Structures are given as C-alpha cells and as structure tokens.
C-alpha cells in the first residue's frame, strides 16, 4: 500500500490543536529513540523532566524565569508573521533591548522605581524597534528578503554587545569594582531598577505579566482594529491590498518595529527582572538563543498570541528541566510545524 499525503483544502478546527500536539508527541518520540540508543530509560527520564519542570519545589518559579523571554520573543515572531514577515532577528532585537533598558536604568540611577522601570521598558522597546527597522527598511525599499538580513544582524548585535563590555570603555562597562578588574562586567543597576515580583510560593516576574498584557494587546490589534485587518490582507494577498490602496511599505515598517519592540521588551525584562546588568558573556544571555526558540514557540502556537503564552510556559518548563537534569536542551528544538 502506498501512502499519499494530500494537502487539505480547508483546515478543520481540531487540526489547529492536533498539529502542535502531534509535533510535540513526535518530538518526544524521536528523543526517546536517542535516549534508548544511548542506553537511558525514556520513561524514567520523562518523569524526571516533568518533576523538574513543574512539580518539584520551586520548579514553577524557575520555569517562569525561562518562559518569560520566550513569551516575548514568541510574541515578536507571531506579530510579524501575521503579515507574512519572518522576523528571525528577535535574538538581536532582544540584545538591543537589554542595551537600551540598561542605558535607561543607569541614566536614571538615583530615581525611584516608578520612574526607572517605565523608562527601562521604553528604552528597551525603542532599541529593539530601532534594530528591527534595519531589515524592515531594506525589505520595504529594496525588497531584500528580511529572513536572512534579520538573521545576519543577530550576529552583529551580539558582537556589538561583546564590544560594549569586553573591548571598549563604554557607558555600560564597570571599570571601578574589584571583580571588574579581573573579568569585564557591566555596571550594576540600582535596586530601584529591579522589577517587582508577585507571589511567594510561586514567584511570578513582572515581565511575565507584562508579556500576557502584550499578548492581549496583539490580539486586540489584529482582531479588532483596522490596522490589524489591513496587515492581514497584505499578508494574505499583497496584490489585493495594493488594489485596495493600502500602504504596504508603511505597514512593513510598522509591523517590524512592533515586532522588534516586543523582542526589545523581552530584553528589558532580562535586565529588570533577572540580570540587573548588561550581560555580554557568551555563556550568559547569548547562550540561550531565546530569539531563535521564540520562533519555534510562535510556530508551535500557530501564531496565535494566547497560544504563545501557553507554549512559552511549556517550553520554558522543558528548558528548565533540561538545565536541571544536566541533560540536553532537547525539547525546545525538534518541532516541525507540519501542515496537514
């Protein structure tokens, strides 16, 4: 018997749930094969993973720490994809977000939290948006494919980050403390610049709550406003949009700036919630690849902002388990978005 795969003409509702679940199951199956091949018991490993990610003492708190950046980068990718723009630059925009928000936090050093924290958010969003506007501009005016340009700019952003801390005497670099003489580090932000958290048994970072707010905002924007409608028309059929007189170039710039601002907000949350200093260490922020995982999050969530929240939480848990168990960071990886 020969199996033929045919494309569906319409996508039934159950499929939008079945596909992500199916991909995850397939991923787990494949990893089980790897585990078996290297002489581990997959069932026991998965029990440990679940334990470490969601059930153990303090596991949920740590899972939220991992989920927060994925939430922002996932939303950033989802926002751009509504117009068929592939913003692979979430990683670099997140770096720029950390630079921008750290700058705001350092400038306003002595000020109280209610002034510093909004300034950090604004700084992060502005820097992320600015970096995203580079590929957006090239796409809008030279029709240069944004996938590769935004990808290449991630590396440039990473090198700029290294330069600011390791190879220059920039505003962000700490040149006074004793530890900075041994190994270059960024200046520490004031205590007022640390974002508050909510809850005690399970600590919810402010960034995660802001991320949920952003998800609601994106949904409203795309489902309830004229701007969102036009964006979707341009995404689905650029020609129809042109005949209807929609301004495509402006929309490209606006949507990419929005996407970059969300990723930059993720960078601000990294500074405000967790790191409290500009982290350029290749083994620090840059080792996690939150921007790249965010694209997988968005794809798994099928670009639905609310599903992004859920998937980011799930993958955050798996990443947490991966680092707890010293095992591979596997699960966030293998996810193919299969179209039935």
């Amino acid at each position, binding site marked *: 018997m020969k199996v033929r795969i045919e494309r569906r003409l319409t996508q039934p509702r159950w499929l939008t749930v079945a596909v992500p679940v199916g991909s995850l199951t397939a991923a787990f199956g494949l990893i089980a094969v790897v585990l078996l091949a290297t002489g581990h018991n997959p069932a026991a490993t998965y029990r440990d993973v679940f334990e470490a990610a969601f059930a153990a003492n303090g596991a949920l708190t740590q899972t939220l720490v991992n989920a927060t950046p994925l939430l922002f980068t996932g939303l950033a990718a989802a926002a751009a994809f509504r117009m068929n723009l*592939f913003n692979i630059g979430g990683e670099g925009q997140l770096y720029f977000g950390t630079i921008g928000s750290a700058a705001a936090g350092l400038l306003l050093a002595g000020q109280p939290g209610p002034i510093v924290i909004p300034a950090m958010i604004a700084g992060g969003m502005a820097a992320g948006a600015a970096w995203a506007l580079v590929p957006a501009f090239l796409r809008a005016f030279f029709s*240069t494919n944004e996938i*590769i340009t935004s990808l*290449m700019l991630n590396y440039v952003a990473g*090198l*700029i980050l290294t330069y600011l801390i390791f190879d220059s005497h920039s505003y962000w670099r700490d040149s006074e403390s004793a530890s900075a003489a041994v190994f270059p580090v960024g200046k520490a932000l004031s205590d007022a610049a640390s974002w508050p958290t909510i809850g005690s048994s399970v600590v919810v970072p402010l960034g995660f709550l802001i991320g949920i707010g952003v998800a609601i905002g994106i949904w409203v924007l795309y489902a309830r406003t004229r701007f969102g409608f036009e964006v979707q028309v341009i995404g689905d059929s650029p020609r129809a949009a042109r005949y209807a007189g929609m301004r495509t170039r402006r929309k490209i710039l606006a949507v990419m700036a929005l996407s970059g601002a969300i990723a930059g907000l993720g960078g601000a949350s990294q500074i405000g919630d967790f790191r409290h200093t500009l982290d350029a260490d290749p083994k620090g922020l840059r080792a996690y690849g939150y921007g790249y995982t965010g694209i997988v999050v968005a*794809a798994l969530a099928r670009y639905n902002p609310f599903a992004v929240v859920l998937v980011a939480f799930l993958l955050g848990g798996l990443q947490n388990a991966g680092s707890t168990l010293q095992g591979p960071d596997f699960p966030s*990886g293998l996810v*193919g*978005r299969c179209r039935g």
Partner: protein
Amino acid sequence: MNNSILVVVLASGVAYGTPLLFAALGELLAERSGVLNLGVEGMMLVGAVMGFWAVQRIGGPGGIALVLAVGVAALAGAAIALIHAFLVITLRASQIVSGLALTIFAGGAGLSSYLGNDLNLADAPARHAFQPVDVFGLQDAPVLGPIVFHQTALVYVSWVCVVAVALYLRQTRPGLNVRAVGESPQAADAVGINVARYRYAHTLAGGAFAGVGGACFSLALTPQWVDGLTGGAGWIAIALVIFAFWRPDLCLVGAYFFGAFQALPFALQARGVTVAPELFQALPYVMTVVVLVLVSSGIAKRRLGAPGALGLPYVREER
C-alpha cells in the same frame, strides 16, 4: 617574506575558511535543489562531535582513523539533515522554522552537547589530528608556500570538492536536473524528474558536507571537543552561499575571504596592534547584508539571484 602579515593572514585564512567552504558547498547543493536549510550550525556540531568520537574510539594507524572519522562526521551530518528533509519535503513544513528548530535541537545546548557529555569526550586531546602536509616539498616557497603548499589534507580535499560540485552542476545531467528542480519544480516534474527524490538527495548531501565542515574544527583546527565548538560558522556558511551568488567557485573565494577576516585580529594582535576583533568578526555578516541588498534589485536578481523556488515546498496539485 613568509612572515609578512599578508602571508600569515592568508595562510590561516585558508585554514579557517575550509570548514566554511565545506558547509557552504553543502548548503549550496541543498539550496540549488530549492531547500533552504538553516540547520547548518546544528549539523556541523553533530558532525564535529561524532567525528571526534570516532577518532578517539577507532584504533589502528592515525591516517585510517582520521579518514573513518571524517566519514562518520559526514554520516552524522546527513542523519540530522534527514530530519529536515522529511519535515520540509514530505510533510511540507516551513523550511525556516524546521531549519531553526534543527539548529536549536542539534546545536550548542542540544544534541551535540548531550552526545559530548554522554560519550565523555570533553577535556581530552584528540588522539590523532590532521597536520599540515608539505606538498612537493614546497612549504618554504616564497608567498605561495605557506598559503598553498602547507595545509592539511582537508584543505586539498575541499578543493577537489569545489571542482567536483562545479562540474556536477554545470556539466552533468543530474546537475542540470537539480538546477531545474530548484528553479521550477513544476517544469522539472513535467519532464519526469522526481522532485522529492532530488531534494532529499541534495539535502542529505548538504548535511554530509556540513558534518565534514564541523569535523574540520574537531579534527584539525582545534583538535578537541568543547560545546559550541563551531562558534557560529554555520551561519557564516549560509551567508557565504548568498555572498557567492550560489556558485561553488565563488564559495571558495568567499570562504577564504571570510576566513582571513577571522584570522586578521590575531595576526594584528601578535604585532602589537590592537583593534577591536568584533569589527572584523562582524564584517562577514554586514557584507552579506550589503550583497543581499544589491542582489535584490531587479536586474541583478534575474542574473545572479537565488534559485527561483528556494524555500518553497512543492505541491503537485497546486501547479
């Protein structure tokens, strides 16, 4: 004369460029068949770790062990590419998402690191490594000696591969078919070329090349295993394919160009000149963006541009 900075930089540029060259040739084959594989970095790392494992575990004389290790690396790279091929060709998943997922799954914090830990490969020097060979006794020849006649065997193999890939694409029937599949799968299908089979074959070949590129690190450049050994070379390789307008001969030039930029800061430092290394490291990426902008203007695109069907799944019914 052979100590002048230009010769030193070019000689190490060739060495540093070789993994880029292998990986870029592989990506070029895949892209010419219409499959964009952003998983190069992941495939390189798995190739690097498995090649290193093979050289540590295979007994016998060094030469044979090294050749077998390169073979293992190629197989490992192809095995990872098979996942991508299945997802994007058979299931028609998004090539971008699948490729990125592949790099995350196999890359610095994923499968390659897991294998490295599980097989206890870290913190041990390689039992054998590729050493530069003195070709025709010309290693001390002025200028050309260090650059051309004193490199590892992998460098010479890569030259053979460049010629082979160029001839294959230009002079053979299957090579012509691949280009047809990449430009217009509909037309290729209409004349009886099996689109899926060609895409599978070239995606797998691309993975094998990437695996060998990874092995260049763990068996020649830095003969050991550390997590994330390739340090982003996979992404430069993807950039290189665009930079070289999808042509194997230009891949060679571009690889050594980018390789020289990686070597330049070290050479300058040794001479007491301190320049921020980031400046040179960023150049390949910036230049690729510039080239992309130039390529995307109308006329240039038709002349030199990407394969027409690059990144698009082929669905027969949608003709």
